[in-house]
């Protein structure tokens, strides 16, 4: 079956879902043994309502067209693919970047929030709540809410509000209310807890705009679908640019939304899919199965099942879990998950800036750090490598400055 993709303006092939590697989860929201809907009963009806609303909207050409036209006119899509000429020469590979850093608000987060804000309106709700770690998803949510005239409240760990003062102010400029979360470890996982606790009390008129491919069904699936535009665009562009199917498709992973969106475009191709976690928050490579925030997935936890805090240089990757579909892709061997440490990430950031004129966010710098480490080793010379440049580095410049200045 062929259908017109209004965003790209060319015909794309629709693959029968049952045959797809990253298709729809089962009725209980499972990807293999991961996913599900582990939330208290008061929230179950809201999850069921959301699932029905999303299925209905995503099958409605009018909804899809509005989503795609906003991403085009307001969000700046499609984002280009950039060939890194000098770094490719240095490394002996062909390195390409999918430039989500050029999307409005500076990261891929806009794709998801436009979809969920439209869905909020479609469900007849007028308020959105969101959690944020570094502030990217909070800023994107506030942006989408402003665009569509929704009230927006963002929950942010108190420690993160102090570390990301400018993003707090950005959200306020955009008309959102930022609530510092003082419970637990006062970081992202606690912001998610608090957003869920609040959602219970206002579920009638409020949508919880979750920022990643995590949480109870249908969030991991819905957010991936709203992010798959990254991978679908990139797959088409790769063909148009004569890259064909890249040998490697690489993305950084916190909760995993930019990676899920990117992988969705290549899951049924021959590309090797590589997710790169921060070594201080590596849920797949260092974690074990468990249940948190409504999903069964891989988690960083202690020997009693208490959830640990994640620590890395990048607040956007400091999440002790990972989207359940990634846990499944790892399980079946379709994607591989690697780690990058703070030091090599800082070096990668500086190298991309000075060699290619692009200051990456610390998150995608993890993907680049892995590529730099493996080029000519795990990645054979001559390979084509596509990295999802999920966000721009402006938000991190002050932090990088203080680290580099403080270094011997």
């Amino acid at each position, binding site marked *: 079956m062929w259908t017109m993709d209004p965003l790209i303006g060319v015909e794309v092939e629709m693959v029968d879902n049952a045959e797809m590697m990253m298709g729809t989860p089962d009725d209980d929201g499972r990807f293999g043994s991961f996913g599900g809907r582990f939330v208290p009963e008061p929230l179950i*009806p809201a999850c069921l309502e959301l699932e029905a609303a999303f299925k209905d909207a995503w099958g409605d050409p009018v909804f899809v067209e509005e989503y795609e036209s906003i991403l085009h006119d307001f969000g700046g899509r499609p984002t280009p693919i950039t060939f890194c000429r000098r770094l490719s020469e240095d490394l002996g590979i062909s390195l390409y970047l999918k430039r989500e850093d050029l999307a409005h608000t500076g990261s891929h987060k806009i794709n998801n929030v436009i979809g969920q804000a439209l869905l909020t309106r479609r469900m007849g709700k007028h308020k959105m709540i969101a959690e944020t770690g570094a502030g990217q998803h909070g800023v994107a949510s506030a942006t989408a809410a402003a665009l569509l005239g929704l009230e927006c409240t963002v929950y942010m760990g108190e420690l993160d509000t102090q570390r990301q003062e400018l993003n707090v102010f950005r959200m306020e400029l955009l008309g959102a209310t930022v609530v510092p979360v003082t419970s637990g470890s006062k970081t992202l996982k606690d912001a998610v807890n608090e957003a*869920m606790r609040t959602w219970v*009390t206002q579920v009638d008129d409020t949508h919880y705009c979750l920022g990643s491919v995590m949480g109870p069904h249908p969030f991991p699936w819905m957010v991936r679908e709203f992010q798959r535009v990254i991978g679908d665009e990139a797959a088409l562009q790769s063909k148009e640019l004569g890259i064909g199917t890249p040998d490697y498709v690489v993305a950084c992973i916190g909760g995993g939304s930019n990676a899920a969106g990117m992988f969705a475009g290549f899951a049924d191709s021959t590309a090797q899919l590589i997710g790169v976690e921060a070594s201080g928050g590596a849920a797949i490579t260092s974690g074990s199965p468990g249940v948190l925030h409504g999903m069964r997935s891989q988690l960083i936890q202690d020997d009693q099942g208490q959830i640990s805090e994640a620590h890395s240089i990048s607040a956007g990757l400091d999440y002790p879990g990972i989207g359940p579909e990634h846990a499944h892709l790892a399980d079946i061997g379709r994607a591989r998950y690697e780690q990058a440490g703070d030091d090599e990430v800082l070096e990668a950031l500086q190298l991309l800036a000075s060699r290619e004129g692009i200051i990456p966010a610390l998150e995608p710098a993890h993907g680049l750090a892995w590529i730099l480490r493996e080029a000519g080793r795990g990645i054979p010379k001559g390979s084509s490598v596509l990295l999802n440049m999920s966000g721009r580095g402006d938000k991190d410049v002050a932090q990088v400055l203080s680290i580099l200045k403080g270094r011997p």
Partner: protein
Amino acid sequence: MGISLSERFDALTKEKKKLLIPYIMAGMDDSWLDIVEAVIDAGADAVEIGLPFSDPILDGETIQEAGLLSLANGTTAFSVFAELAKRSLQVPLVVMTYYNIVAHSGHERFAGEAAAAGITGSIVPDLSLEEVGDWQDVARSHGIDSVLLVAPSTPHERTREICARSKGFVYAVARMGVTGEQGALSDDVHGVVSKIRAVPSPPICVGIGVSTPEQAFDVSREADGVIVGSALVRKILDGEGAQGAHAFVSSLREAIDR
């Protein structure tokens, strides 16, 4: 072995006795077991024993605070079971925790050690109707009844299914919100109780936000029992100890027997 939750509650309900279930966070205080004994002496029909979890999404500030204290004291599920096993408590004990604590131990081990400690009921709020099956089967094989929740937002047919599956009692969530004290009962109480009354169910116990003897009295006019958590935990956090807990639970007992 413990005292069967479903048998005891069915018998008491047949005698038209109202059920009182105080909640205590295990390990929040060195004397928590003395407090458990005190609330039983004051007239509790069962005691809900909370096991701390790092990310309790159905709990408000008071129980979060107690949970953090308990974790800081080094409490684990198995340390709690070991301590409970040393006492002979004359009412059913209902363990309340989040699913990761159960899943991490493994259903079989958790249920086995809980049962050996005298636990005969479980409340795992993040195990919904769709997810509870595996745990419920293992729990039952160890004599543990799994209690399910009905919320103000639960539709009629779902309420029927939940009540058919819930064992021991059904936990009627008194408001759309997390645990915590409140000045006045939510209007949701009446709705949720009458919704459950419309279908076959085990005894109906109302919890979340029932804070005072007066509120407990009001709830007990409609429901079969009341669960009081945060208000009691607050008194323990404030240092009132076993004596304060005894006095408070006695006043709740007196109110619902009025």
